[in-house]
């Protein structure tokens, strides 16, 4: 019988009611009396010397309050980068200044140059058209390999070139890897592009700044995945506002997928301008602005070599990747192609020698940072593609080749610096073969062939590092922050509970799943427990939600705080029942004395804590509220095996995804319904990357794909029903819930199997054999490859 509440129950989401009735409170729904509107005049060229800005005519337009330019922000800090990479020679990465408004130079299409503040949005927009920019267009650098040439135009004149860093990992492995490849029986080499994507949460970014002169309090309402991180970055590094004078609120947020982690110029602008003008200032991004100002994702160009011995054992992996940083370093950009990518290059396999080289490059494009999976999809894609390619070259079954090389003993220390605590890759592969009905594939292929179509089946495995992250470790790796999280469990006098959590829910359903954990621990109904999140003035602290960390890190903090509450409550219960504390048991919301029929209800104890008439005041304080900070001991390592089945029309190159199956190991699961939903959404984004989505710049740096007319988002007709399973569970060994995280798996695990399936379909036909096609696998690319 499935449970109907607590851990393991598919509790229906309580937040749904407000979203289904139009009662959500998203940032754009916030309107403050007296607010002004800002419109950003953005660059329409990729690279230019900005000689001057003439705002005179615009300032005279109706409703205009003030026009800000780069000169107004000269004394203001640079938008900071949160991660410092040390390159293979021991030198720090190159780190350019990132201004709030462009000053002296324009470095990408979409960069904000002027900010027009007016009484209405339309007035601000109209006035922006009257601004005259004086600039000289410079040659743009778009292609990464061109950008690192000695004579390439420089994105930042003050830097030595466009190379941000040249990172080797693990540098000491290099010699052994080179030797192993030289002596290998077979080496498969694959050059590929991991296409640039735009995260595209359906809610565009919004920021509303407020300032109260009477107490010098700044408030920023913003579409953020991590309000405390924004408070720290913007307060300390950009505007110089101490934490106690800066409140950051992220209310209902309409999806994030990574791109709402980062601190953006628009947030700093509205906070700055609200004080300068002593009125609230609001900015709402249009979708077109989102395409040219939200940090993009992926954009790697990679060469990977997989070396095998005569028995088809993997002996070495060597990669060289060019990773696009865009024009500036976004908040976590440098960490994505390095620590979130290089550390995962072992995948699910016991390859003894691995070396990863990453060259991060500045170009005249929008900054690139974490997008769902962040580095791990790039690692998974190249590894799982090259394995499939090797299987084809060697004439062996791709599933058997993977199985033969699986890591089977845990803990397992990889040659790329991480230690997998637990997993069972054979179990997820077995499960996949069952749920994807491999046995019926040949019959389905024959049916397709009878219709003149080709059918292909592709598989891949994945591993990811989630639960980000152990602070001491990431500190050594260049993180400029700790990556713990915090929670306060506040028990009210009548026994209901408010839990203030540092994680932020923007679709993940924390308001439902977190109370399931507390309900299980204490034995009171879920509806007696509420979650408070997204407001720095209400929660103790928090590093936010990304890297599939909410439950593994913040959930662990919540469990620790709840344990403290229970321990204190047991002391009170012992006093009330005149028993020894060691004999007190808590079950189903009642404290009892072991071996007796004495008991008191949860509510009697909580009431005693707040009305301490009969209470051990000498020994413990009144009240029942505890806070815990939790810093994880290790990453968590979700893993799984995915299969995609496609039907391909050889006449047109059109690919239809017929079946998609996912067998995941997420460790323990709190709410299976929510977990399945996370996987579904991730798979759709993976199908999008593999088949539809591509962010395209022309050679001059114009963004060609800046609307939903040009950037192909997956729609309902592009995807099938998915078959997902998460019954293979090897619980995480080092956090109290045994959970691993499930938010990114679908997006990490799905692109390779789709590409593998299309190649399987093509190569099953009588026509030309094709070794690789770069994503997205549009009909034109597929058809062209087949000719």
């Amino acid at each position, binding site marked *: 019988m499935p449970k109907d509440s607590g851990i393991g129950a598919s509790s229906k989401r309580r*937040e749904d009611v407000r*979203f*289904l009735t139009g009662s959500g409170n998203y940032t754009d729904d916030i309107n403050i009396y007296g607010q002004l509107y800002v419109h950003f005049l953005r660059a329409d060229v990729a690279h230019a010397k900005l000689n001057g800005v003439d705002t005179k005519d615009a300032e005279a337009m109706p409703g205009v309050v003030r026009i800000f330019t780069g000169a107004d922000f000269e004394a203001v800090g640079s938008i900071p980068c949160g991660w410092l990479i040390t390159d293979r020679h021991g030198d720090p990465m190159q780190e350019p200044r990132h201004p709030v408004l462009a000053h002296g130079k324009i470095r990408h299409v979409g960069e904000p140059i002027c900010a027009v503040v007016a009484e209405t949005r339309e007035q601000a927009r109209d006035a922006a058209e009257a601004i005259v920019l004086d600039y000289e267009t410079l040659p743009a650098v778009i292609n990464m390999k061109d950008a690192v040439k000695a004579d390439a135009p420089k994105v930042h004149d003050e830097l030595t070139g466009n190379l941000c860093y040249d990172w080797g990992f693990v540098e000491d492995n290099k010699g052994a890897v080179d030797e192993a490849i030289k002596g290998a029986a077979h080496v498969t080499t694959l050059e590929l592009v991991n296409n640039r994507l735009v995260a595209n949460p*359906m809610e565009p970014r919004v920021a509303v700044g407020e300032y109260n002169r009477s107490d010098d309090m700044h408030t920023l309402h913003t579409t953020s995945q991590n309000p405390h991180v924004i408070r720290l970055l913007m307060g300390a590094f950009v505007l110089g506002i101490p934490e106690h004078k800066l409140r950051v609120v992220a209310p209902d947020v*309409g*999806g994030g997928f990574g791109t709402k982690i980062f601190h953006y110029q628009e947030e700093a602008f509205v906070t700055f301008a609200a004080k300068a003008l002593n009125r609230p200032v609001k900015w709402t991004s249009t979708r077109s602005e989102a395409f040219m100002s939200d940090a993009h994702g992926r954009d790697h160009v990679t060469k990977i070599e997989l070396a095998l011995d005569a028995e088809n054992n993997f002996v070495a992996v060597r990669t060289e990747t060019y990773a696009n940083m865009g024009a500036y370093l976004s908040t976590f950009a440098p960490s994505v192609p390095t620590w979130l990518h290089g550390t995962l290059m072992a995948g699910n396999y016991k390859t003894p020698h691995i070396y990863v080289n990453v060259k991060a490059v500045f170009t005249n494009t929008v900054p690139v940072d974490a997008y769902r999976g962040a580095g791990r999809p790039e690692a998974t894609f190249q590894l799982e593609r090259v394995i499939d390619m090797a299987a084809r070259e060697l004439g062996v079954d791709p599933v058997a080749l993977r199985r033969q090389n699986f890591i089977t003993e845990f803990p397992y220390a990889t040659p790329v610096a991480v230690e997998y605590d637990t997993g069972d890759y054979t179990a997820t592969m077995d499960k996949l073969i069952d749920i994807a009905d491999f046995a019926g594939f040949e019959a389905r292929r024959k049916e397709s062939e009878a219709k003149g179509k080709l059918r292909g089946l592709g598989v891949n495995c994945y591993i990811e590092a989630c639960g980000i992250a152990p602070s001491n470790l990431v500190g050594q790796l260049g993180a400029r922050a700790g990556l713990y999280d915090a929670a306060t469990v506040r028990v009210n006098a009548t026994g209901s509970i408010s839990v203030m959590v540092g994680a932020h829910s923007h679709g993940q359903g924390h308001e439902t799943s977190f109370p399931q954990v507390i309900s299980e621990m204490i034995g009171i109904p879920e509806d007696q427990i509420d979650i408070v999140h997204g407001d720095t003035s209400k929660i103790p602290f928090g590093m936010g939600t990304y890297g599939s960390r909410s439950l593994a890190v913040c959930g662990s903090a919540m469990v620790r705080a709840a344990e403290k509450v229970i321990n204190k409550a047991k002391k009170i219960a012992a006093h009330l029942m005149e028993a020894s504390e060691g004999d007190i048991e808590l079950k189903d919301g009642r404290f009892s004395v072991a071996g007796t029929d004495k008991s008191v209800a949860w509510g009697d104890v909580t009431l005693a804590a707040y009305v301490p008439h009969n209470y051990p005041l000498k020994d413990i304080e009144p009240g029942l509220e505890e806070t815990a900070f939790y810093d994880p001991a290790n990453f968590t390592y979700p893993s799984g095996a995915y299969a995609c089945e496609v039907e391909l029309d050889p006449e047109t190159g059109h690919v239809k995804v017929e079946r998609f199956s996912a067998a995941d190991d997420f460790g323990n699961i709190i709410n299976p319904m929510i977990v399945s*939903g996370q996987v*579904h959404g991730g*798979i759709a984004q993976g199908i999008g990357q593999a088949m539809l989505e591509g962010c395209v710049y022309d050679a001059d740096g114009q963004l060609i794909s800046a609307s939903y007319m040009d950037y192909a988002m997956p*729609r309902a007709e592009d995807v099938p029903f998915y078959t997902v399973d998460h019954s293979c569970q090897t619980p995480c060994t080092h956090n109290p819930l045994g959970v691993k995280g499930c938010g990114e798996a679908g997006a990490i695990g799905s692109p390779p199997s789709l590409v593998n399936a299309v190649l399987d379909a093509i190569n099953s036909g009588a026509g030309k054999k094709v070794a690789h096609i770069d994503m997205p696998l549009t009909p034109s690319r597929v058809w062209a490859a087949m000719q």
Partner: protein
Amino acid sequence: MKVTMKVNGRAVSGEVEGRTLLVDFLRNDLRLTGTHVGCDTSQCGACTVHVDGKQVKSCTMFAAEADGAEVATIEGVAAPDGTLSSIQQAFQDHHGLQCGFCTPGMVMAAASLLKDNPKPTEAEVRHHLDGNICRCTGYHNIVKAIMAASGQEMPAMAAE
């Protein structure tokens, strides 16, 4: 100019510019913020409402064009006592939403579909949603919820 219309059964009026979009009138003048704006090219469908019983993207219509019309938005879908409609309830039962931003448009689109086609096939549901983008759910549970709201059995593939 002055516009007058009935929104969720209530007569309303307001002063708008010629260029004011229906969605901006609903959101900014009437403070009916359940209707969302997700793009500026009439592609995403987050702003879907019904105008005189027809499914319309309210970012694609001027407020002035809706003068005299009957407009239905997400705020008017549940019963006055808060009871969810069968479509809204199916979305909750089947986890047909995550961040909730596209949800009002999805519910309005689904209501329009089921009014015209009470027992749609899976393919018909997916086709009808072509103008509504969701980035969270991968559509699986949205399609499932709409099929369930129509009172039909789930295909085996949609079991999970």
